[in-house]
């Protein structure tokens, strides 16, 4: 099987527990204007499953020792569900912990096959406002919530990830919405403050980056926001 991916990154940080290798799948149904991986749309390459597994297995001892594993990210891995499931199967066959980094913005994923293969879901909550999600990212919030509810019903292990995007979701009202949404779930949260490290990629791809001039949040602003989450009784994920 051939996999359409744009990067395999070793010794990743923040993509799940322990020492992890992240496989970045190409393509995504969303069009978030702050995206830091724009190459998922165009700059992908095709690698054989065998090659990908060889790279992933290189770090097997590191996963074992650190209780780490493999994270499948993107783009949106569920947009290439069959390849994603095939890879999860292979990784699992070696007894390696698996994590799936997803926006959950894909309708009716094949959870009956995904759930037994995935140890941890890293699920994005970008906003609680359906209109903003549709207008800015091009997705349906209801799809995200339906999927999240399903995962919850099935008792999946989930970490919610909230990107903090200036001008999109860092105003009080947006944050309040996100917090009251998240409080309905039993999951810990990771805040992902906006950074513009992807700007060079846009230039290389000849694309315009809408967030090129947006300054990252200050450490104090980030701390204030995480204070709000803590005050609402939301745990921070230890990954």
């Amino acid at each position, binding site marked *: 099987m051939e996999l359409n991916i744009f990067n395999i*990154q*070793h*010794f*990743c*940080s*923040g*993509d799940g*527990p*322990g*020492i992890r290798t*992240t496989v970045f799948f190409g393509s995504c149904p969303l069009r978030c204007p702050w995206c*830091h*991986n724009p190459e998922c749309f165009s700059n992908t390459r095709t690698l054989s499953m065998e090659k990908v597994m060889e790279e992933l297995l*290189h*770090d097997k*001892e*590191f996963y074992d*020792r*650190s209780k*780490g594993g493999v994270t499948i*990210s993107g783009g949106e891995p569920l947009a290439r569900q069959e390849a994603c499931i095939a890879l999860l199967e292979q990784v699992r066959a070696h007894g390696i912990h698996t994590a799936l*980094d997803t926006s959950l913005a894909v309708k009716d994923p094949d959870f009956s096959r995904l759930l037994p293969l995935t140890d941890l879901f890293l699920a994005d909550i970008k906003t609680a406002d359906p209109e903003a999600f549709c207008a800015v990212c091009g997705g349906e919030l209801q799809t995200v919530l339906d999927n999240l509810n399903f995962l919850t019903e099935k008792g999946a292990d989930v970490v919610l*990830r909230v990107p903090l995007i200036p001008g999109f979701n860092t105003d009080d009202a947006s944050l309040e919405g996100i917090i009251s949404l998240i409080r309905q779930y039993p999951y810990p949260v*990771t805040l*992902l403050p906006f*950074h*513009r*490290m*992807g*700007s*060079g*990629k846009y*230039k290389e791809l000849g694309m315009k980056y809408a967030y090129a001039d947006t*300054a*990252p949040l200050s*450490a104090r602003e980030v701390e204030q926001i995480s204070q709000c989450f803590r005050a609402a009784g939301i745990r921070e994920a*230890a*990954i």
Partner: protein
Amino acid sequence: MAAVPNTTKALKEEMICRRKATSRFFCNAAWYKGMSYAEHPTEEIPIARAYAFQNMLTLGEKHIYANDLIFGSIIGQYSDGIPDDDVRYYENFSHIAGERGWLQGCDHYASAYDRLLQLGVGGILAEIRDSLKKHSGDREKEIFLTACRIEMEAFRDWIIAHAEKTEDPEIQRICRKVAVEPPASFREALQLVWFAHTIYQWQGLYAMALGRMDQYLYPYYRRDIDEGVLTDEEVQNLLENTFIKIYEQRLWLDRDDVCNICVAGVTPGGENAVNGLTYAVLYAVGKCNIPGPNLSARIHPDTPDHFLCEALKVIGTGLGYPALMNDEVNMKALASMGYDLRDVRNYCMVGCIENFLPGLQPPWSDGRFDSAKMLELTFGRGYDFRTGERKGIDTGDPLTFETMDDFMWAYEAQIKAGAEFYAFRIIRENARYNNRDYVNPFLSCLSVGCVEKGKDLCNGGSVYPAAHGAVIMGIGTIADSLCAIEQCVYKEKSISMETLIAALKADFVGYEKERDLLLAAPKYGNDCDDADKYAVWLTDYTADLFDQYRLEDGGRFYTAMASNTSNIPAGRECAATPDGRKAGEPLSDAASPTYGRDRRGPTYTVRSVTKPDYTRVACGTVINQKYSPSAFRGDANIARLCALIRIYFAGGGQEMQINSVSREILIDAMEHPENHQDLVVRVSGFSAYYTKLEREVQLDILSRTEQG
């Protein structure tokens, strides 16, 4: 009992003020010693040297800072103003008397501080008296032991003179006590050790290690903690107050004393050695946050993860210390040199990373072995490309080498000739001084066996003979170069030997295409055997070579891969190399892959750099690794690094020095991206090479990075 306050910050400020108050000053050691030499022109030489030592200690100022908790300052070495004619006149006497230098075994030493603490100054003086009786009639030994007596008495009186400089009765009591008796409390023990270290500094000795402080001070610490005399916080305050003094050298000499402190590991009995004091030393070094106290942590499989994680947190503050040492590999390497197992287990480091048995062998020395230069000499048939000088042997015309084996045969012959020349020089240098006269009685008294035998440390007094480290230069440059030659010249035949030599001579000007081909060959540090096998070969080959030589006293040559910064001057002298490195650029650093060329991340680097057999590199190696400060943030990240280190050590790695990337490095990476192509910025779901980021984004990261 009065509580021990934290005076570190105040003391540091006071030290800076004191230094600023002096505009012109000079080192008075040669003057003070010279006056004594002039007084004793016909005295037996060792005794004249002892009198000179005594005079220096008598005349030098015993400076006490208002914020001192532990006394002993280097200020007494200096006099205000500029040397006048009187000073110059007497200095001549000292210059004629001479001193041992670095290659003759003067410093880079770790004392048997446990011996000093157990016996006390009085106990050592009693031992000298007994030994004098025992060796009565043996003139040479009587002279040496008399010199020992003079110097230890001078040390005693110098300590008492500190008591006279203060009105604090508790301080007076401590000084008067440790001047004679063995210390009983932690504070007394630490004070006596620091007094001895101060004397070494007054003697002008460099890189004198404090060694295994968490072991030899432990009995005193345990007793004081158990009896409620001190709290852990107070112990840490005393240690900080001591370590911050190491900063005096930076202020007065504009250099850092490479004062190695070694913690953790195992006890001589083989048990896990981590204790409460281990943590106190670690935190105190971290709090001082100055270069100079070179903290080394011996990491054994039995060392608790908790300690390793705490060490990583200190590293992550930007300090870069402690250096992490693989206890199993180091002990195996030392055991192969024939030392007793209990002594091996008690090893520490001197200087940066050099393995040393405290108090049991003469002072350390090492030198630069220009293995990368010998590659150039292989191409040049013994001639230097740039200067045209003959610097090696003729190993045949490279154009006639038909296979990589032929090339390796010639390169090995070139290295062998280089090693012969190197060993010849070191053996002669090491024995340059007459061991009977060029003695260091004080140092000998703080070592094992010298007083008893009536012999100086460098004159057969020590338990073991000397050891010398040949520092193998440029393992990354060499592995990458040999791999590029094999790939381009012999396998793919994309570059002829003739063109390669022309390209190297031309520093690749006009040969850009060839350079690209060479750069594209596999590089050391990416877990690729094509390149890594040459690092394995270099390690084994040089270990075999140097194992054949012996110093005058029978001591061994160790190898090392720890260039400190000498890969920079060594590179300056080297023409372009086949790995694509340009003429004059630094060689790869220490045992690390060439910076920027291990691009697949830490897990691949670790796999590569555990391939060489470091149990054959008894002096030690250094693998420098850079991580962004965020890699140290939070318990999850610390645990990741901890697991990485454990795998690295289980695989046979010897040492790792981790640097949290400082502002300085980030700025340098913006100006010289070619040197920092491995610098990765990792955040969730994303990572990028720092040098590929746009300038504004680089500035974002820079603004979030603390000053180092």
